[in-house]
């Protein structure tokens, strides 16, 4: 059974009423055809838009997860231990004021 015979069989069994000659003459059939075409185009475009958005959202999620996993796996860098300057140990004996830059 090929595709043509399946389509022929479906066409035989379909119960959709055929448009009357009046409907064709007044252009009613063309209005319906245009209406279906518009909605089909809108549906296809919305579906395409939605699919692209969804795949990008998934990609963002995946990348964020990857980033958080990487951050969790790497050890945090050791923070340097600063101690307060003991003024008594200063050679000059006076606390130095912050120097201005070379240009003054």
């Amino acid at each position, binding site marked *: 059974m090929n595709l043509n015979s399946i389509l022929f069989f479906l066409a035989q069994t379909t119960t959709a009423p055929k448009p009357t000659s009046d409907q064709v*003459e*007044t*252009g*009613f059939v*063309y*209005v319906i*055809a*245009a*209406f279906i*075409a*518009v909605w089909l*185009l*809108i549906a296809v*475009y919305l579906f395409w*838009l939605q699919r*692209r*958005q969804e795949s*990008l*959202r998934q*990609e*963002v999620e995946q*990348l*964020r997860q*990857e*980033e958080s996993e*990487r*951050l969790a796996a*790497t050890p945090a860098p050791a923070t340097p231990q600063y101690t307060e300057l003991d003024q008594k140990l200063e050679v000059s004996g006076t606390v130095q004021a912050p120097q201005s830059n070379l240009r003054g």
Partner: protein
Amino acid sequence: MATITKRMDFGSGTANGKRKLDWAKILLWTMLVSFPVTLIFILLAPSDYELKYSQRIFYFHMPSNILCLLSFTIYFIGGLGYWRTRKRSWDILMITGLELGVFFSLIGIVTGSIWARYAWGTFWTWDPRLTTVTIMLVVYLAGWMLRSSVEDPNRKAALTAVFGIIGFINVPLVYFSTRFFPAGLHPIVFGTNDKVVNLEGFMTLTLVISIITFSQFFVYLMIQRIRLENLRDQVAGVRMALYEDEDFV
């Protein structure tokens, strides 16, 4: 993570802890009302004497064509903006205008062909309006294909801007084709002289309602398209941050 550009936002989240208005959702809800209302008006509108019932195709055909020209004008403005500033937001506007222009021109061509089969007895004829629309669509499709083939984002945006600026020559040509070549089959709809099609009061009202509804849909699609580009930027941003981390590790 540093953001690449300042994003165009339409309230799809929260700002300072407050929930922002989601314009896409508002438009979606209003369209649930406006689309059936438009359909009722289209069904109730009186039929044309010559074109009979088929004249109702006009209420889908014309708004989609207006929005097609508007989209390409937005693309042109985006192109000029990008050429001046080289900002990503103008690039987003360009691709949005381009894609929506192609989409609405397809609706216009398909509905027009179906209507032409009834009104002129053929699906297609090389009428000045149809010829100029076809040239316009081919030019913009070529621009879109060229954009897709380029990898470098800056080059991609610059090429799109060039196409947007040069291709805009077609837009006034399409609009004025019925005036430049009056022997064509398309009538003049907007104008003041005696050659203009006069629509009956209820027909004009139906057309206005249809244009408003289609415009709502257009704005909704624009928001969605801009969000798609924002998502693309987000992906690029996260990826960049990830690779930066990799470099430091």
